[in-house]
């Protein structure tokens, strides 16, 4: 045995071993995509029961349901304290297995590929899975029967009947609904109502008023407008495209979603980009490019920033940092031109937060039944109270005083009337294009406001996606 120990490890051997360590650095790639293929023809035994008036989806009352909830801005209390008790009141023998994560794709994607997904998945957060790809791979359950089923607690109506217009449409992929977008978000320009009242600044409805007000605000030593370039420039993309839709109706955004050639160089986009680029040139704080959304939002809470483009989750997200001198309110984006096709009151409001049932899990019907429970009025109200976020369940929060920001958002919805549009879907359909739009928006707003460059760049990226055969395409009308 001495021979084994005789050979000393010389330095060259050590070096060779070090090189081997280098080879360890790359297989991570393979590890990321472990379990290749695998589950295409899986035959997991799925639980079902007999359909009846009381059990419209035909679930097995004794089969457990596994749910996974994203732990983010909305928290998880709505699931554990509202939805699950509600579900178990009706189905006491169906055990809910609950888990939560901040990294949905890292946790769930391998399980989907292994053929053992959770039954109901909340696909949200910055680490969400590409839902378009999930649908194309047949991993999401068709929710047609869910939306056609009677509502949980509104008698005489189907689930679809109880939802706000566009809610089902938003989760529809090539004609079939696969996702339930639960929360309903109103987008606009957020500001501190108390500050604006004390300075008697009036909310602008035209672009001229907007720039005039920005001048006044700047003179008062406050940054008029800003967003966080480091991680939240998609808020700016939404502001810009909302303005574009107001100039040229939602059709401008539909063309973008459909990857139509020339969609990004069309007149409404150009005008919106030029108008916003000017705001970037004159009124933005250039250091925001390096800041994260929390840092910029904190600056707004400290009245160092006047207008911030965001959705109605903002108030809840900032609740810990909002001083008593600050009261959130939201305004519609001002009209860009005098010939805008939508009125100044028009707003972008959209359903968000995807919940879906896994098609190849153990109990997809159970997962759908859980979603049906979430779409009850009772659960929706509970969700709104806990998260200060509206839901797609129409009128679930009516007559409830929840918070000033949410009331303001509700007012905005009322004023907009029929001029509420869903917005765009390319950001969830084509993540690469979404990524490009964030970088392009940063460039436009922080680096000189060149609208043509913005349009050309996005047009090129959009056409590159259109030509890429490895990207699954979707269309909307």
């Amino acid at each position: 045995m001495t021979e084994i120990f005789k050979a000393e490890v010389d330095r060259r051997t050590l070096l060779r071993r070090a090189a081997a360590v280098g080879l360890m650095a790359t297989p991570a790639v393979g590890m990321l995509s472990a379990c290749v293929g695998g589950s295409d023809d899986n035959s997991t035994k799925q639980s079902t029961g007999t359909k009846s008036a009381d059990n419209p989806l035909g679930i097995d009352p004794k089969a457990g349901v596994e749910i996974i909830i994203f732990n983010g801005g909305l928290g998880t209390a709505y699931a554990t304290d509202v939805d699950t008790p509600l579900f178990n009141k009706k189905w006491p023998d169906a055990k809910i297995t609950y888990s939560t994560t901040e990294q949905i794709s890292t946790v769930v994607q391998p399980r989907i590929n292994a053929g053992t997904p959770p039954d109901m998945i909340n696909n949200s957060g910055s680490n969400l899975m590409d839902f378009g790809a999930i649908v194309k791979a047949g991993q999401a359950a068709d929710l047609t029967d869910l939306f056609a089923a009677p509502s949980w607690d509104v008698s005489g109506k189907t689930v679809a009947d109880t939802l706000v217009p566009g809610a089902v449409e938003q989760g529809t992929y090539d004609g079939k609904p696969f996702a339930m977008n639960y929360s309903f978000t109103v987008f606009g320009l957020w500001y501190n109502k108390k500050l604006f009242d004390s300075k008697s600044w009036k909310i602008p409805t035209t672009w001229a008023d907007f720039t005039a007000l920005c001048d006044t605000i700047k003179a008062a030593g406050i940054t008029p407008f800003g967003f966080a370039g480091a991680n939240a420039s998609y808020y700016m993309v939404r502001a810009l495209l909302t303005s574009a839709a107001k100039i040229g109706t939602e059709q401008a955004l539909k063309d973008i979603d459909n990857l139509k050639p020339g969609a990004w160089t069309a007149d409404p986009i150009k005008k919106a980009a030029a108008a916003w680029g000017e705001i970037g040139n004159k009124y933005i704080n250039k250091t925001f490019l390096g800041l994260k959304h929390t840092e910029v939002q904190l600056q707004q809470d400290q009245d160092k920033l006047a207008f911030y483009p965001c959705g109605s989750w903002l108030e809840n997200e900032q609740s810990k940092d909002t001083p008593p001198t600050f009261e959130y309110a939201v305004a519609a984006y001002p009209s860009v031109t005098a010939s805008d096709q939508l009125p100044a009151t028009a707003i972008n409001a959209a359903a968000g937060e995807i919940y879906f049932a896994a098609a190849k899990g153990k109990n997809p019907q159970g997962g759908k039944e859980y979603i049906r429970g979430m779409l009850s009025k009772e659960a929706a109200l509970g969700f709104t109270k806990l998260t200060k976020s509206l839901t797609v369940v129409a009128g679930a929060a009516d007559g409830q005083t929840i918070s000033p920001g949410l009331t303001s958002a509700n007012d905005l919805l009322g004023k907009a009337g029929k001029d509420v549009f869903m917005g765009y879907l390319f950001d969830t359909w084509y993540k690469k294009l979404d990524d490009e739009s964030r970088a392009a928006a940063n460039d436009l707003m922080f680096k000189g406001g060149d609208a043509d460059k913005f349009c050309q760049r996005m047009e090129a990226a959009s056409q590159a996606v259109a030509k890429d055969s490895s990207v699954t395409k979707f269309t909307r009308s």
Partner: protein
Amino acid sequence: MRHGKYPFIIGFLVVPVALYCTFVVAAYLQSFQLSLTSWSGFGAIKYIGFENFQKLWNDDLFWKSLRHNLFLLILLPLVTVALALVIAFLLNVGGSSRGGQTRGVRGSKAYRIIFFFPQLLALAIVAVIFQRVFGPDKSGMINGLFPESWSPWLFLADERWAMTCILIVLIWQAVGFYVVLFSAGMGSIPAEIYEAAALDGATRIKLFFRITIPLLWGTIQVAWVYLGIAAFDAFALVNIMTVDRGGPNGASSVLSLMIYRNTFEFSQVGYASAIGVVLFFLTLTFAALTLRVTRRESVEA
């Protein structure tokens, strides 16, 4: 004595080799296989030949990322090794010699702990700390030190400097470890050699270049390879610290980040695997080259 040699060796090797085959070799093979597909990460796999590599060739971001990796590959080992050598030399033999014995500068033990400390911090924590150090407004540590009238440096938000910021953090984090490594190496250099040289009237600079470096050459080689490998990674820092992750405008993108984003965010596992394959060959080439170039007879004490 040959009796029982093979069962003994096999007994030692079975577990590591099995682990290595499962988690390294198999994963590699799978990456190679996937790089020839347009797999999205879900569902069916379609073979598309070398299309991914063609796409890679035309992808500006890929070339940008590659340039950034090369930037790190050249500067990270160079600066880190140089700094670590100088510091280790000062800590071990740079002080005044008393009674004919060389020793480190005053308080060298305390310095050693301080230099090693960054190594103990998780990379994610380092990234978050340095995000504050490089904060682009007055709340940032460096900008806070500047006079009020200066307009703040954007650091990570400036396309020209983003990559340099990453390099600085990598160096800061790595230097301590190599100081300790080189210190250990210097400790094994017999003191008589230094004494003899000192008696012959060699200055400290001469000692450093004529005695320390040649005798440490093997250790330096190892350090070089390790640092080179770290330069091919840099994922955690870039992912956490940079604007728009890899931005602004791809100014801080690196290959590992591209792999991650294509896999998990863009649903282009096939494309990501193609990048992985490129990275594999790059690492291999680097390791082979380093072994060739640095081959030099070391002086054995």
